[in-house]
Every structure is written in structure tokens, then in C-alpha cells.
């Protein structure tokens, strides 16, 4: 299955891209993250939350959406 992953703020500096499409077989977000940590080892030390189809989700959530986003701490206002 194909999924778009979006990166923002300091996370996009670390990945050197703002989004990428990946093929995945994992069922949960935490499993998918293990692969991302292999690709981007420094990601492990970063503070971020995950949104699936524009809603915040927990790590044990099932991947059911089209779009994931890795969101570093918010700084609006």
C-alpha cells in the first residue's frame, strides 16, 4: 500500500524533504516508525506527534489513512 508522509519544521530539515511516498506493509504507526528511524536515525531524538489524515493519533493506531504527518512542537501565534 502507498502512503504519503509529510514532514514539517525541524523534522523536514532532518529528512531533507517535505514529503515522500512510501510503500508499506506495516499495520500500526509504531511499526512504520521503526522503518523511518532506520532511514533517519536522528528522528529518534526528536519531539514530534503524528497526524493521520489531519487528526492527531497515538502510536498504536492502525494505519488506515492516505496521509501521515510528523509534527514537531507547535509555535503558532
Amino acid at each position, binding site marked *: 500500500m502507498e502512503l504519503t508522509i*509529510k514532514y*514539517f*519544521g*525541524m523534522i523536514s530539515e532532518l529528512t531533507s524533504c517535505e514529503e515522500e511516498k512510501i510503500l508499506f506493509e506495516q499495520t500500526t504507526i509504531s511499526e512504520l516508525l521503526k522503518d523511518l528511524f532506520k532511514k533517519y536515525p536522528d528522528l529518534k531524538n526528536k519531539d514530534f506527534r503524528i*497526524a493521520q489524515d*489531519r*487528526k492527531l493519533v497515538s502510536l498504536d493506531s492502525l494505519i488506515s489513512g492516505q496521509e501521515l*504527518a510528523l*509534527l*514537531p*512542537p*507547535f*509555535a*503558532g*501565534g
Partner: protein
Amino acid sequence: MERTLKNVFVKGPISSAFIGNSIAKHQSKTTIGAHNIFLGQVRADVINEKTVTAIDYSAYEDMANEKFHEIREDAFKKFNLTCMHIYHSSGRVNVGEICLFVFVSSPRRKEVFKALEYIVERIKVDVPVFGKEIFEDTSHQWKTNT
């Protein structure tokens, strides 16, 4: 009443002319007895002896606009408001310039004091906006809301 999803983001700083025009537009709405306005301004913080000169804002705009919409709907439910406007900058905003403009109006003053604080606090916590603080020497760090 369901309101349609608006784009809250404006490119660059929010000008005082824009803010003045927004106020002027409300003169025809004569049930309003009280306005309240919050203006967020970029501060020249000194961090490790380096001074911030600007913040470069980026956002997960699709999710952010949905969150702004949720906040707007919740505020209309909670408070007796006639209207509400929210604008947030994207891109570079220099120190001293305005990056957030929240404008609430009601028949009565007590509602707008409560509503404005509620809306601004929700924006700080719930909306995926990111701020790159740029220093004089062009180095940067990422801002975090406290």
C-alpha cells in the same frame, strides 16, 4: 450555523492598514456593542546571546485550517458572538511586525473578553504552525510554544 472552512493564512506580516480596514467593515453591523482584538507580535528574544530578527512561519495548512475552523465553531457555541475573524502569517515576519490577528465582536463586552482569551489559548495549543526563529547571523532555531 455551520460555517465554511476558511483559509486563515496570509503571506508575510499582517499590516496595520489591514487591521484598520477590518475594524471599519464592522461599522455597518450595529447590533455589535463590543469588539476585542488580539495582536501577536514577533519579539526580539535574546537566546544564547543572539537576537531574533524574524520568524519564518510554516504550517500543515490543511490541518491548521481545520483546527482554526473547530476553534471558531467551539467559540461560537460557548460565547454570544456576532462575528469572529482569525488571520495568521505564513512566511517571514520581522520583529515588531504582527503575525496573529484575532478579532471578536459581540453585543456585550463580557463575552469578548472571555472569548478572545479562549481562542488565542486554543490556537497556541491546537494548531500545527511552526516557527523558525532567525538570528542576526542567519543561524536559526525552532520556536516552541510554552
